[in-house]
């Protein structure tokens, strides 16, 4: 069963919740799909045993053939290729690896090679957690290339916790796409509510069941709760705005390690999801 943890707004506590769910239950898969800024390892402290390099195909141009590469520049939707006379200027960070320039360019003068876009690190964390994190190479916009390689590592007979990237764009949608349930984390502020609403739009259109965790409860206003009640949305948990939680978070101490009574609360959420929501 795949449970993803997402939020429209960044910094609402996705990783706090995802890590707590994994630690409370144990013997699960933990997937850090926030490959642009993976941080779950700070809390789970996995013993990384294995690294996998993720590559994409990128073109290179044999300019010594004297061929005209103009068509490659015209074709590239992402503007990764410019042509000045016989010279080709290639921008690897913009290339999506579609291979179009091989098709439209001068035959035999455009080649392809594997280029590293990031790594997947694998290891074990307590208790019995199989840990996977994607780590995108800075400057490369190949988030989904890495996430799709991570998809292949999921052990489907286990509970799988996916820590999603923030926002509601492609990387978030891709992370969620196979989820049986999504836990949306928000904060009780106007910004939190706005982005919660956007996330719910995404989940509705993807037909994925969801519930809400309100983090830093006590700040802002009561509008998020009002919104959930009005729309019949399950509030799974409220985490108070608490200096002790914040202080420990900043030192890499998860909620369940800081105060073990949280383990029961997160296990209850997982029980609810397994028995009633899915």
């Amino acid at each position: 069963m795949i449970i993803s943890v997402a939020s429209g707004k960044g910094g609402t506590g996705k990783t706090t919740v995802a890590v707590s769910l994994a630690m409370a239950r144990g013997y699960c898969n933990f997937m850090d799909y926030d490959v642009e800024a993976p941080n779950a390892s700070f809390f789970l402290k996995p013993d990384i045993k294995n690294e996998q390099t993720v590559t994409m195909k990128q073109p290179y141009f044999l300019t010594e053939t004297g061929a005209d590469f103009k068509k490659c520049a015209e074709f590239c939707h992402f503007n990764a290729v410019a042509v000045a006379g016989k010279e080709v200027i290639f921008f690897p960070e913009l290339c999506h690896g579609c291979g179009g320039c091989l098709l439209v360019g001068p035959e035999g003068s455009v080649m392809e090679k594997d280029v590293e876009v990031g790594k997947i690190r694998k290891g074990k964390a307590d208790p019995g957690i199989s840990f996977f994190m994607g780590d995108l190479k800075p400057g490369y916009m190949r988030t989904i290339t890495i996430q799709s390689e991570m998809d292949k590592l999921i052990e489907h007979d286990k509970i799988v916790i996916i820590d999603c990237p923030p926002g509601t764009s492609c990387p978030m949608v891709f992370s969620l796409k196979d989820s049986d349930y999504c836990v949306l984390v928000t904060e009780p502020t106007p910004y939190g509510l706005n982005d919660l609403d956007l996330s719910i739009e995404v989940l509705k259109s993807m037909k994925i069941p969801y519930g809400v965790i309100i983090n830093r409860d006590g700040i802002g206003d009561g509008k998020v709760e009002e919104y959930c009640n009005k729309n019949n949305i399950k509030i799974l948990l409220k985490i108070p705005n608490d200096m002790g939680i914040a202080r420990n978070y900043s030192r890499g101490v998860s909620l369940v390690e800081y105060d073990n009574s949280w383990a029961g609360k997160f296990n209850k959420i997982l029980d609810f999801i397994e028995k009633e929501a899915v």
Partner: protein
Amino acid sequence: MKVAISSSGTDLGSNVDPRFGRCPYFIIYDTSNDNFEVVNNQGRQAMGGAGIQAAQLVIDSKADAVISGNIGPNSYHVFSSASIKVYSGVSGTIEEAINKLKKGELKETSSPDVSSHFGTGPNWNN
């Protein structure tokens, strides 16, 4: 000499646009006969690489030089590969810019003066 100028409008009274890649128009001005043509910058709404696409447009227009308010690293890289002279940091009208160029008052820019994505975001109202 042919020079491509990032422009906010379609005539010589328009202002030099502060953005290179995402300006609405380019005025391609020929200083040998004082003729000019206006080219729509069709790549200005590109998701990424607008500067590269615009630089390609300038190369294709056979310009020898480019004038703009700001030039980012990718466009600058293309211009230096294509040996096109870059005059950046220019403001005022297109006409004023051309007069300065003719009098030799513009100084060639030797590096990009803004970072990538300078011309994107909510501060630009288009």
